């Protein structure tokens, strides 16, 4: 039993602290550089130090209808793929947690395949299948592709929470006369709610940022990553790409922050397991 973990936090050796913060710096400096380059007046090369400072790219980005169309499309795709992943992932987690059945061990294996196999495999497999059946490439083919690799994130989060949940709560609820639906709504759901939210956010992020599978499953649709990819080959618009990236990062910071807070409060019992 750990009563107060914060007072027991040991002091890190200096070398470890330096290595850790060097790692963090390595992760974040490139992102800051994008922020910096949104201000460059230099359209064609990557000169450093910047030759000057300008704010005109923000105005130009605002007027780019194609950019905002692709943002909307990405949000829609991610929302629907996340919704599908929430349902399929939590159903699979419930089945694996509740019952023992033949092939149970293979379920995690099957679900983890789409993110464990290189994205290009999923992409080309889906493209060949969709093309082979003469199904037109559309919004829905993108969603179908994204859902395959989003399911596992929700599944992992929810299953982990189920395993930490006390089975006695469910038994108590049933003993006190609640039916399965009431037990689910009043006991199980509140327990897994934050896991669903955290898994959902991660699934949303995966889908929102996905480019490899999407290049294979999209038709004429341009999601935000595909838009950025197409921008990379058109040097004139590079600073606009930076502005777009900066907006995306600022918008997504809030949900990730909230989801971390939600799971942090419920995960401090971790590490106590025998």
């Amino acid at each position, binding site marked *: 039993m750990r009563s107060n973990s914060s007072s027991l*936090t040991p*002091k890190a050796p200096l070398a*470890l*602290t330096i*290595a*850790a913060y060097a*790692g*963090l710096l*390595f*992760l974040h400096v*490139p*992102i800051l*550089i*994008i922020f910096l380059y949104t201000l460059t007046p230099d359209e064609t*090369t*990557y*000169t*450093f130090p910047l030759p000057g400072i300008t704010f005109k790219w923000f105005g130009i980005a605002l007027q780019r209808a194609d950019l905002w169309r692709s943002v909307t499309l990405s949000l829609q795709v991610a929302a629907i793929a996340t919704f599908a992943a929430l*349902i*399929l992932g939590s*159903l*699979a987690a419930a089945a694996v947690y*509740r*019952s023992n*059945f033949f092939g149970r061990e293979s*379920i995690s294996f*099957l*679900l*983890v*395949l*789409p993110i*464990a196999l*290189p994205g290009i*495999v*999923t992409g*080309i497999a*889906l*493209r*060949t*299948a969709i093309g082979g059946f003469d199904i037109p490439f559309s919004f829905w083919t993108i969603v*179908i592709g994204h859902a*395959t690799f989003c*399911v596992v994130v929700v599944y992992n989060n929810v299953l982990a929470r189920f395993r930490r949940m006390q089975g006695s709560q469910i038994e108590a609820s049933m003993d006190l006369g609640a039916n*399965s639906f009431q037990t689910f709504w009043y006991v199980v759901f509140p327990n897994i709610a934050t896991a669903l939210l955290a898994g959902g956010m991660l699934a949303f*992020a995966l889908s929102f*940022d996905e*480019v490899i599978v999407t290049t294979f499953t999209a038709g004429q649709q341009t999601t935000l*990553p595909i838009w*950025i*990819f197409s921008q990379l080959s058109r040097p004139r618009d*590079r600073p606009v790409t930076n502005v777009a*990236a900066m907006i995306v*990062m600022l918008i*997504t*910071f809030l949900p*990730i922050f909230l989801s*971390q807070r939600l799971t942090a409060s419920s995960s401090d019992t971790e*590490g106590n*397991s*025998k």
Partner: protein
Amino acid sequence: MLNKISTYLYLRPKLVLWLTLGPPLTYMIIVYLGSLFNLLINSFYYLEQFTGLIVREFTLGTYARTFEPANLEIFTRTTLMAIAVTVMDAIIAFPLAYYIARFTPPKLKTWLIIAVTLPLWSSYLVRVYAWKLILAKEGILSWFINLLGLQGALDWLLGIPAIGGSSLALSPLGMFIVFAYIWLPYMIIPIQTALERVPHSLVEASSDLGAKPLQTFRTVILPLAFPGVVAGSIFTFSLTLGDFIIPLSLGNSKFFIGQAVYSYQGTAGDIPLAAAMTMGPVVIMIIYLLIARKMGAFDAL
């Protein structure tokens, strides 16, 4: 009514199992495994070179083509890169994960975890592009290297035939840096999760029994955290194997698997050869996953 359904279901656990497992299983089997199987079948067809049409007849000829020296070279190059990136990421990630898991009070921990996951949320492509800015000839890294007076050392590195090139942005060395950067969070998170699960009592017991901190780390913490490293390596290895964006935007003109597959199916329209080429990573990853599962890495995902 609800009570009746509830009782009905309670008495039939098999039915409940099928109701819960049915939808996800159906989806994954039909959409995912179905597509993979279809791809496998396609790899046994071949492309008629003159007409440019796919002939739906069983042949091993397409697989034979993946063993042509040019394609073998692509496999070797990609696998070596994936191994190098995985090792590098483990080296950078472990101290950071260890620091977060063991030496930070809860508040700081929340912030650090956010700091590690935040790059995953920002566009992957733009982060690749950021490195294009950094690695470019007139870019920030050259400026910094010049400032330190290390231009000679860089030129020497770029002069090594296997990893060098005309500039960092156009060399395998530059690609390696970018790969390691892009997949790093995928390595940190599973290691940190695994380290969090190492029971405090074991660490205390070890030091009570007279082990020095370094000894405890080597004999207690590291073995228990190793599944996390394996779990992370699944991502770094597999993502490097299949990526075509980074080789397309940075490296020299030498192909990686993803790029080869992309161009075979796209511009060449040779779906059978593209399919056969992807079977390489599929086999490598399935073997990798089976070993990883044996080592308990799936619990650390």
